[in-house]
């Protein structure tokens, strides 16, 4: 009953429950808020994995920027609430749920019964060291500088694209 285990159960339950609730609410704003809760839970899980940088970035970027953007758009557009779940296309929806369940069980099977090639249990020190910002920064600016710059370009393109697409008049 280590600390990692308790924390994992806690944050895991939060994430899982909030994700399920997110897709089943009728109100869009409520769905968005539950997604924010999901991201928070994920950040906690990242901490248990000693991934400090990622946890912080998760909160800042995802919960702080992307979800805010989502909420802005929701408030701008004021979409009407959906009707009851099984009203339109019930057969397809039930079929989709079944398919989802099948994929889940396949993934579970693969997780437990596939053979691992590398030993997947590093020491705690290595794990901690891997998650520090120095380590990530060192890799980012030396070995992976090219994807870094490309990501910059991507963001530039996305910014311009979003501006152009959402304008009222050309």
């Amino acid at each position: 009953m280590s600390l990692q285990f308790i924390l994992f159960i806690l944050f895991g339950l939060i994430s899982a429950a909030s994700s399920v609730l997110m897709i089943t609410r009728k109100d869009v704003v409520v769905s968005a808020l539950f997604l924010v809760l999901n991201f928070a839970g994920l950040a906690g899980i990242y901490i248990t994995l000693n991934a400090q940088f990622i946890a912080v970035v998760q909160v800042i970027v995802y919960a702080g920027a992307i979800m805010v953007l989502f909420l802005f758009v929701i408030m701008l557009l004021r979409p009407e609430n959906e009707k009851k779940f099984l009203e339109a296309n019930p057969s397809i929806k039930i079929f989709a749920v079944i398919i989802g369940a099948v994929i889940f069980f396949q993934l579970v099977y693969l997780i437990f019964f596939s053979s691992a090639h590398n030993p997947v249990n590093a020491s705690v020190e290595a794990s901690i060291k891997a998650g520090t910002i120095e380590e990530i920064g060192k890799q980012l600016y030396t070995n992976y500088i090219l994807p870094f710059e490309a990501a910059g370009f991507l963001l530039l393109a996305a910014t311009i694209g979003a501006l152009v697409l959402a304008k009222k008049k050309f």
Partner: protein
Amino acid sequence: MMTEYIYLTVFLPLLGFLINGIFGTKIKNEKVIGIIGSSAVGLSFIIVVISFFQTLSLPEESRKQIVELFTWIQAGGLNVSIAYQVDQLSLIMALVVTGVGFIIHVYSIGYMHGDKSFWRFFAYLNLFIFAMMNLILADNFVLLFLGWEGVGLCSYLLIGFWYDRKFEKSTTSEAGKKAFVVNRIGDFGFLLGMFLIYLTFGSLNFTEVFARADAPGIPESTFTFIALFLFIGATGKSAQIPLYVWLPDAMAGPTPVSALIHAATMVTAGVYMVARCSIIFVSAPAILTVVAVVGVVTALFAATIGLVQNDIKKVLAYSTISQLGYMFLALGVGAFSAGIFHLMTHAFFKALLFLGAGSIIHAMHEEQNIQAYGGLKKYMPHTFITFLIASLAISGIPPLSGFFSKDEILWSSFANGNVLFWALGAFTALLTAFYMFRLVNLTFFGKERIAKDKHPHESPKVMTIPLMALAVLSVIGGLIGIPALFSGEGGNKFEHWLEPIFKNSELKLSHYQTYAHSTEITLMIVSVILAVTGILVARNIYLKNPSFADKMKNKFNGIYKILWNKYFIDEFYDWLIVTPIYRLSESVLWKITDAKLIDGTVNGLASIVNSISTRIRKFENGIAQFYALIMAVGIVIALFWIIFTL
């Protein structure tokens, strides 16, 4: 040597066809068209004559020359080239075709005067000469077959030349179709023979095939089948039983066509082919006998029908069938050169008879019923004299050409065949003389039965001069074939000329006993007596005592009806073959196979594709989530695959 340019004789008429065919409507002057057409054949004739005399000067062994133009087919073991063979037999045939052809071309300038398709006539005539020259000069079966089919095509085109005219109960086009279809049946036999020849001898070249046929080692049954199939082809083209039914109907075409194609040249193609393949036929004695039997039976059969016909061209048509029967009789008893000799003399006098008939028809303004003629002698003296000469020739009166050739055949059928052949042949000669002079008497002599509105007159010189030329040939043409017992040493000149061609075949024939000269002379006198008898009986009946004919007709009305209706053979064929095929085609092949099966399959395929696609395209409904669902299903399948191959 002019023989190297023998291919010009083939291609000059083709050139004439092209010029007249393409520019014919632009050339308004009939004379120019006629000159182009006639000179094409005339030049060919000159080339053939020069080649003939040059070949005459060569020693006997080197008289065969082959002029090769280019290789036509080269596929595996099959090598066929466009090559022409100049030897004694093909030179004789070429002389006849181009010579008589030229005369008829000149005659046609006058006969077809004023016709609206004047150019088309001469174009077709030249095309015919082209095909016929290919046929006789070919050095392999394939080129011969090309000419064979070509003359069949030209026959169809020329029979139906006046395509908007009625003819008896149907149209001229129907007559042309009948000729073409019946010919086709014969051609099928010819093709089967050619296939067998290639299978047996491995080649289609005359020289190679005949050399291998002469060598031992091939079973007689093979020769029997080959000869049988080839002979079927010959019966189709040369109008023998059972495929003669097209020739009387072919009289629907203009008279020069009847003269050229259905008397002198095309119908002799079968005789030529059998003579050329003599080595194959003598290696199959059973079929040789069949040839002789079919020949003599056809001769008798056609002569009986010709006795009672009233259309002048029909009488001559049945006479042609009968004389062709004589030629096949000659071939069948092994007297190949006699058959070719009769072919040559028959070309002269039969062409003359047809051209004379054309002159009469022209003068009588398209009236062809001899019961409406009578006493034309004083209106058309030139036509009368030449027609009389031709009738005497065909009846076998010495010293005209027909006597020598027919007598040669009768003698050979007695000596090499059996007495029955001679007896039937002699009886047919009697009938020949009878119906020819019935025709002459009813047309030129006696009381005039001419209708009031017709004013007969002599034909223009452009038509009578060819008649006279042919008359001269009919008189002197037989002199080169005077039999051995008259001409002394060297024997029959004609036979001697053709001897190298038939030497190998004659060696294989079984020879019967030889007869004394006195037997030959006796038989000769007998045939002359029969001919004169026929002439006198005809004169008695039709000139002196016309009502006797009507009395006989009423007394033997049954026989008369059978003969008048041509033994009902046409109706029989129609019932047996034509109508069932027609009904089968209509009800089974058209309605079921074509409409239901084939159309059903094609349309059905289209409708299947249509229905499948209508169902499948519902998958693309534009809703992105639906596509995502399909992707998820794909992922499930992929994951299952991974799990099961782990």
